[in-house]
């Protein structure tokens, strides 16, 4: 609550111009920090590739699933880029270009699903805990502490390995380890907001608990949550890619960048006289993941500056 006159005046002023200011502030941030433009550009590029995938890399006419990379023979040795295979092939002759293009779709799908799932779970747990307080809060938050007591990747590996490998299970497992930070953050904000007058007003009007929580309280503490979500997007993409790299994610031949990198593990040595003979099998999918994550991280920084001016 603003206490001094000065503060309340500035709060009033910022309220009035908040809506108009957001677009302008977006532009100002973008100009002040060209890196955020780079981030947006990278993501726009990947989004374009993901959307245009059927045009950029048309699936085989009789393909069962467009995400399965076509194989050109079964020779174990990767082939370098050629006219037929723009980025070359991996071991077992999977076309790298096709895998990269459709892998962009997989990357967006996986990243957005995991963030969405963990955000929803975190919002539910943190919101309910903060709203009801007492033993509900105690129980839910101690449960959160226990999930937080594991290093992310370790718990995710355990969950995937018992559920069985596969992209779907990877998404569930990473979501299962990512929600606690959202829950903690939201709980703190809910504790502060639920004491505000507009909440009492809503209650006086006869609103139900669920309505107060989801229509009045949570919308008022959503911004910090979105900031954390956009900043955690990068690490989530890395974790899911790591699980695929470890052989716990997408099956061999599925268009997934992490999985394509795992196909390159046996080819770091090259052939005699040409140590970098198989450079494309690592460098191309590796750079794709790097640039994708970099895009989210740069954009996340900018989102933080815009939505959370306290951290400027």
């Amino acid at each position, binding site marked *: 609550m603003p206490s001094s006159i000065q503060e309340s005046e500035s709060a009033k002023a910022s309220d009035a111009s908040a809506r108009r200011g957001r677009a302008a502030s977006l532009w100002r941030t973008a100009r002040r920090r060209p890196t955020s433009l780079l981030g947006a550009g990278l993501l726009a590029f990947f989004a374009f590739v993901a959307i245009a995938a059927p045009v950029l890399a048309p699936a085989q006419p009789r393909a069962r699933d467009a995400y399965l990379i076509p194989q050109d023979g079964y020779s174990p040795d990767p082939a370098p880029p050629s006219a037929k295979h723009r980025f070359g092939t991996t071991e077992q002759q999977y076309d790298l270009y096709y895998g990269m293009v459709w892998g962009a779709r997989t990357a967006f799908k996986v990243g957005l699903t995991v963030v969405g799932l963990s955000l929803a779970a975190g919002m539910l747990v943190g919101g309910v805990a903060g709203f009801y307080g007492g033993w509900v809060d105690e129980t839910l938050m101690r449960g959160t502490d*226990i999930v937080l007591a594991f290093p992310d*990747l370790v718990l995710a590996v355990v969950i995937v390995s*018992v*559920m069985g490998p596969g992209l779907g299970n990877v998404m569930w497992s990473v979501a299962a380890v990512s929600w606690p930070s959202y829950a903690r953050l939201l709980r703190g904000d809910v504790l502060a907001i639920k004491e505000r007058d507009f909440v009492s007003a809503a209650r006086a009007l006869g609103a139900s608990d669920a309505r107060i929580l989801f229509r009045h309280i949570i919308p008022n503490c959503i911004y910090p949550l979105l900031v954390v979500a956009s900043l955690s997007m990068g690490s989530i993409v890395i974790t899911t890619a*790591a699980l695929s*790299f*470890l052989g716990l994610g997408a099956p061999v031949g599925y268009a997934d960048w992490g999985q394509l990198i795992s196909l390159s593990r046996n080819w770091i040595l090259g052939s005699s006289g040409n140590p*970098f003979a198989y450079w494309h099998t690592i460098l191309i999918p590796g750079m794709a993941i790097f640039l994708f*994550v970099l895009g989210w991280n740069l954009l996340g920084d900018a989102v933080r500056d815009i939505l959370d001016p306290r951290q400027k």
Partner: protein
Amino acid sequence: MVQFIAKRLLFLPVVMLGVTMLLFAALQFLSPAMRAALYIKDPRQLASLDQVIQKYGLDKPMPVQYGIWLKQLMRGDLGYSETAKMPVADAIKSFFPATFELTCVAFLPILAIGVYFGVLSAVYKDRWLDQLSRFVAITGYSLPSFVLGLLLLMVFYGRLQWFPPGRYSLDVDLLVHSASFRHYTGLLTVDTLLNGQWSAFVDVAKHLVLPAVTLIYIELALLLRITRSSMLEELGKDYIRTAKAKGLPGSVIVRKHALKNALIPVVTLSSLLFVGLLSGVVITETVFDFPGIGRWGIEAAQQLDVPAVLGATLLAAGLFVLANLVSDILYAFVDPRIRIG
């Protein structure tokens, strides 16, 4: 202070109990037959699958099974690891030193580089050094460790033949497992020196370089950015202005005044960093074929070696909780304003 530590120590088993419950609940995804399969060493035993399920109580209600498992755990019996071909407790004992060694070799440079360049980039804010450290941080943050690891291997192993993967070469393997080699600490860099084997030390050190560099580059970002922002905050405070007004030279202000206060969050973070490293080694060890807890845990997970996965995970969670505790205690020590009662 003592009370606070005692309270947190008492809370430790409670959290660990929760951790075991969560792990156990995760295991219930596996059917009784799948869990029984672990006890079967020979295809001929398959006929007796039902007996195995009965014997180990795998079809009993979950709380009962949990009780049995917990009782085993209390006796220090973590079960038998099929992937390591030895009891889980022995496997942890034999794999942990390698992981610990790698972690230490990476940790000290991270601390030194992170703090030194974090402070410099705060002092020279927006100059080229700051831009460079920002670049290192953001790329380190965005580059998956397995991509960096494979690229390093391609250049420094494939092309230059400088740093091979693994923990040691074949001749050192023979030496380490010979009767005359005494294992003082389990840390091979230390043990080879204590045994007076200089060339073996060089070999072991060479094998540590690439995994350590990978860990350093990936984990450096956090410390670099935290030190920088903490230092910037201190440099903007009134007492720094007073010191400047007194006419103190800039280097004294930075070193004697700002740094001490700026390091408070860094100290508390560094214990968490250590644990972050311990989990970061999971990938790094796998990429570099480095025989530590992480590589063993992943192998166990891939082959559904449940006792091994449980053991490795319990260890990771235990270290994690312990490091959180250390970080809280350190916080109270370095910041006299904090009084925890």
